[in-house]
């Protein structure tokens, strides 16, 4: 065992990369749930985004085009969910589970022929002086652009919910859709927009895995990250900064346990592999013991009876 092989700077830098996919997907789902909709299809939308982004990036040679395509792909799939739950008034849990299964199948189909290909590389940020700084340079300024996009998204969602009127209306819809309707807000329209945003974020998170984190295409490569994103939202008590914290914790333990495995620590590999899931959930459960609670209309079907 050789713990000195673990470089803390590298560890922190790589945990930010490991956390980004789950963080982007979770912040999208957070908006969906704050609007009162429970979309369990995050995993399906992520994997669809992953293959859409991968295929388009390979075809065009541009990772940027890939990320845009992933956003569109995820959002398009989420609109199917929106149609089922907001117009056909289908059960949200069942529709979300179906969406995951559908997304997994669809991505396998679309992914035919993309196995074993390398996608075009996404450039890393390289600011002449800053990136060369010792320690902080590597941690703060040496990542690909998507890491910063993810952080910006969390900040933007936080500010949107806290300070903007649109954010207030979104929270109101999630809190009490009957009252929001009585005040004349378009509950269904607001929810569809929230669902599409959640789908776009999930797609983006998926593409981050297939284009940067791994980077290649294999079937089912999101491997449960979508479910972790869902759990993160709940245990983060629907608060954006806690999503960030939870994601970094998850990413951190993931990277750490890989390093520990490589260092040959005397703990069975199986325990190490399960540790990110357990530690993240335990920490967030403890934190969510305060007064915060779910949006009151979460998962309830809205039917305008006027």
């Amino acid at each position: 065992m050789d713990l000195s092989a673990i470089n803390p700077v590298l560890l922190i830098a790589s945990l930010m990369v490991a956390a980004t996919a789950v963080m982007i997907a979770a912040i999208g789902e957070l908006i969906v749930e704050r609007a009162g909709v429970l979309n369990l299809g995050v995993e399906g939308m992520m994997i669809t985004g992953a293959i859409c982004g991968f295929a388009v990036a390979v075809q065009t040679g541009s990772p940027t085009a890939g990320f845009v395509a992933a956003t569109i792909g995820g959002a398009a799939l989420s609109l199917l969910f929106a149609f089922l739950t907001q117009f056909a008034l289908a059960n949200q849990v069942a529709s979300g589970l179906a969406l995951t299964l559908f997304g997994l199948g669809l991505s396998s189909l679309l992914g035919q022929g993309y196995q074993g290909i390398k996608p075009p590389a996404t450039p890393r940020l390289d600011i002449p002086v800053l990136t060369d700084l010792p320690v902080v340079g590597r941690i703060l300024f040496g990542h690909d652009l998507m890491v910063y996009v993810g952080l910006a998204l969390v900040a933007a969602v936080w500010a949107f919910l806290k300070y903007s009127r649109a954010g207030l209306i979104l929270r109101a819809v999630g809190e009490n859709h009957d009252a929001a309707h009585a005040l004349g807000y378009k509950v269904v329209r607001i929810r569809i927009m929230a669902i599409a945003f959640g789908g776009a974020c999930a797609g983006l998170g998926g593409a981050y895995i297939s284009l940067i984190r791994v980077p290649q295409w294999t079937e089912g490569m999101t491997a449960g990250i979508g479910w972790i994103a869902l759990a993160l939202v709940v245990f983060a008590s629907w608060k954006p900064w806690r999503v960030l914290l939870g994601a970094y914790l998850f990413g951190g333990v993931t990277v750490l346990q890989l390093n520990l495995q490589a260092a040959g620590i005397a703990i069975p590999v199986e325990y190490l592999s399960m540790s990110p899931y357990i530690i993240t959930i335990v920490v967030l459960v403890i934190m969510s013991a305060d007064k915060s609670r779910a949006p009151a209309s979460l998962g309830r079907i809205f039917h305008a009876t006027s």
Partner: protein
Amino acid sequence: MTEPLLSIRGLTKAYPGVVANDDVSFDIQPGEVHALLGENGAGKSTMVKMIYGLVKPDSGEMRMRGAAYAPAEPQAARASGVAMVFQHFSLFDALTVAENIALGMANPPALRDLAARIREVSEQYGLPLDPWRVVGDLSAGERQRVEIIRCLLQNPKLLIMDEPTSVLTPQEVEILFETLRKLKSEGTSILYISHKLEEIRALCDEATILRLGKKVATCTPRDTTAREMAELMVGAELHTPSRDYNEPGAVRLALNGLSVASPGQFGTSLKGITFEVRAGEVLGLAGVAGNGQDELLGALSGELRSAAGMVVLDGAEIGTKGPGERRRMGLLTAPEERLGHAAAPDMSLTENAALTAVDRRQIATNGFLNWGRARDFAKEIIARFDVRTPGTENAARSLSGGNLQKFVIGREVLQDPQVLVVNQPTWGVDAAAAATIRQAILDLAAGGAAVVVISQDLDELMEVSDRFAALNEGRLSDIRPAKGLTVDEIGLMMGGAHDMEVAHG
């Protein structure tokens, strides 16, 4: 004669199977308090929803100050100067007062400026409010203030109020009326919906009475007696429940310092509640909603457990026992929420009858259900309590509120309880059905049961109770004989005016 503020001509709205409003016409003058009266289902709510732009009329027209007025949505109605204080569903518990008010405005200023405006307007009208408090923590009276101030900030020309006093103490009602009179003197018209007729006589200038969607009469409330108005609403003579006073017997149910924490975040914990109810006696518990009524019912039904000695039934300590065991021992309860708590909405009446009566009516044998017996029991309830339904196999959801209420009360009464606890037994029920339910409660007590009636309807409590007490923030007031209590005394027992003050000026 000045031009009416709002004139309504031939307004008609039909839903599948029912005509909610049929050719209704009336005028609201500027600065007039106009009452809209009617039984449940008479079409009052549909009427105001059309005025507020939530529902589109099928035919007929509305004119505001002579100009055509057809709001497509509430924003349009608000822009024309129509504001509405809702009875339910219009506040967001998890948001602050200022956020709630901002949501009801077309172009709210920044929250900080809005908070200052809220303070200013609320003081001006004698309805003090802290803009930064979370609405879920407010009392019912304070919540209503939020709604009223939300309306007042928009300088409405017409203020619609849907049953505003059902959640207020008598003192709070008086303060509300002062506020409304001040508004009226400033030229604001008010459309006032209520079925508390004495209030209407005290406040309103004109009344339009609806029955089954049609306008049946107009009257000047000051010159009409409450009974005349009630009979116009019902279209028949009213039957007042009668009772024989008899000496109370042994103590049936006793609470000894019952303290239970509320399970809900916005609930009220019970603090040291002590009372006794004797056989043949009705104890009436008043209180504004949210002062511990639901928790008290839960603690009595067994949904909330307490220390064993806190709840004593016929000498047995049952505080730790669950609902099933308490039912078997003869303590039956009927909660307030009809759909979802007192009845399972999507199950048939037979199934609902079996759900609470399974032990006391021997509906199960060796773990198997005897559906024949359950059906017979459901039929018995339907016959004895005049529940209007096509049959026992209809879903509970399909019954109107009043009929379902008769069913859930009848189900408990016919199980021959030793002690019956009911919460809001006639909430949302029309006068005729309410009289049936009250009579059943009185008959039950006359037969030797002890009854606890929790209600927000003071007239009802005065009619049925022998002794009277009020719940206030989870505490019980002194228990007094109901006979001879004045409204002022009751108001003070209910916690007075919750720091409200009469409008300045």
